């Protein structure tokens, strides 16, 4: 660590980043806080009306029953997506990571397994849309297996009782590889001599897992959970492309609600207010992940 002779030098290195942040980041954050107290349809800010907390009352306290209902449904859907994704991904990734360990051709499997994560994007959401069509692969598979009770005649995404399940399946498909990587890396980074020493000391396999493996996997699990929570609460693209939040709002999430309120209903103030409430929700989650970004600077 040095104190530079010319005390402006360290600041000069920060300059481009700070300028960009002031012009793009800070301005947007500040303006969106201001906006959440205004009623504005978006063309000229001189037409905006200051409304105090009205926007917040509209969707939080039922001043506007429809918006309130939409908001709470959206939050609920975000929660359901997060919980379902975590509940499936954590155990499955754990099992797969254990199985993948010490397998021949592990690197080939790994390459295949990681594909969903890197290409997950608009292209893959269209693929899923196609697979979930009424006569698409999903229905055909369960029909072929003789499990007709699993099929959805109107298509997974076309029925309000199943659209959210379809969204969750894509979340699981896209989210599994990331957690699998974390667990796999965690397992392979345990020093094998620890196990040897433990077995010399007469430790049982169960004891080794509890005393050696699990302490290693615990922080990884925490990080995986936080990542999935964050991802689920920031959901937008797959919902927007596959269902648009429908049918009848059955797959609406906060992201699509904000987008719709701002860019389709031209209600920028209300959209900003909803955005900031969602920020408080995700912020609480993110504070945990924040801790993993501590560096001794």
């Amino acid at each position: 660590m040095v104190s530079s002779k010319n005390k402006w030098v360290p600041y000069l290195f920060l300059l481009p980043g700070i300028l960009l942040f002031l012009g793009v980041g800070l301005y947007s954050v500040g303006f969106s806080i201001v906006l959440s107290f205004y009623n504005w349809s978006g063309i000229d800010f001189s037409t905006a009306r200051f409304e105090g907390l009205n926007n917040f009352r509209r969707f939080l306290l039922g001043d506007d029953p429809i918006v309130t209902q939409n908001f709470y449904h959206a939050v609920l859907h975000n929660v359901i997506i997060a919980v379902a994704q975590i509940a499936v991904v954590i155990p499955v990734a754990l099992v797969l990571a254990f199985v993948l360990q010490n397998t021949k051709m592990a690197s080939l499997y790994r390459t295949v397994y990681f594909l969903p994560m890197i290409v997950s994007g608009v292209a893959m959401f269209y693929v899923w849309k196609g697979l979930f069509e009424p006569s698409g692969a999903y229905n055909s598979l369960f029909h072929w297996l003789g499990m007709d009770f699993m099929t959805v005649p109107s298509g997974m995404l076309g029925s309000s009782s199943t659209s959210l399940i379809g969204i969750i399946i894509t979340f699981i498909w896209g989210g599994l590889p990331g957690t699998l990587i974390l667990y796999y890396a965690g397992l392979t980074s345990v020093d094998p001599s620890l196990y040897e020493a433990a077995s010399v000391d007469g430790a049982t396999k169960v004891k080794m897992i509890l005393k050696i493996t699990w302490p290693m996997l615990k922080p990884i699990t925490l990080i995986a959970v936080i990542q999935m929570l964050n991802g689920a609460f920031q959901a937008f693209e797959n919902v927007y492309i596959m269902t648009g939040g429908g049918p009848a709002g059955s797959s609406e999430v906060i992201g699509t609600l904000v987008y719709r309120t701002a860019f389709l209903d031209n209600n920028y103030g209300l959209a900003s207010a909803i955005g900031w409430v969602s920020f408080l929700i995700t912020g609480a989650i993110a504070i945990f992940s924040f801790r993993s970004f501590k560096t001794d600077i």
Partner: protein
Amino acid sequence: MVKSIKHIILVLYGLVCLYPFLWMIGTSLKTTQDALANPQSPLPEGGFQWSVFGDVWNKLNFYRFFVNSAVVSIIVIIGVVIIYTMMGYSFSKFRYRGKKAIYYTFIALLLVPGVTTLIPLYINMTNLGLENTYIGIILPMINGAAPFAIFLFTSYFRTIPHEMYESAVLDGCGSFKIYYKIYLPLALPAIGTIAIMNFIGSWNNVLWPMIIVNDQHMFTLPMGLMYLDSSSFKKWNELMAGALITIVPILIAFPFMQKTYIKGMTVGSVKM
């Protein structure tokens, strides 16, 4: 016995990962009628229709979308690497007032969900006259990469022995020369990680381009796909051909960047 169960599990999950890709490839080689009549089968009836790719490529000017995506991704990578290695260098090597406050302000950007600032960002960029421009698409993407890139570069630069800095100073090197002659070359692994993560991120990003771009000439590949989807009669074969064009660059690059990408994913949670 245990061994074969193991392999059954591994192969089954492999199929789950691969099937959507097989379906995409198969459907892109069907005729429009075949895609509608037999959507479940990944194999086309009556031979492969290679012409679908050419049709899509020409019909919507996918060449232009491809170039747009490439330009955006490459400039984002360059911007992110230059701007945030400089910041990481400053944070990790110098002692000065306000350093912690600035560092944590940037890291705190992580907390703000993208959708919250979308509206003001859009207003901001249109006021600057940047709608339908590369700069308008790129600047917010670079800014969005700040927290993680700063975190990674700062912690990486801290691992470079301080003696190297001191001996360079004794040899008469200035701070800037030390930065680009010593620190940048030594940080290549971290630069690779950040470059790949941001390539994938900006290549797949659609929310921001969708908002700042309305001129078809400035569409990126994912936007081209959404446009293909917007016609009332759904041509799955064309949609899937477009999807394949969109993901091919990542598929080609992936085997080479897999290791680096995984390193970036596991940083902070696993000591490798």
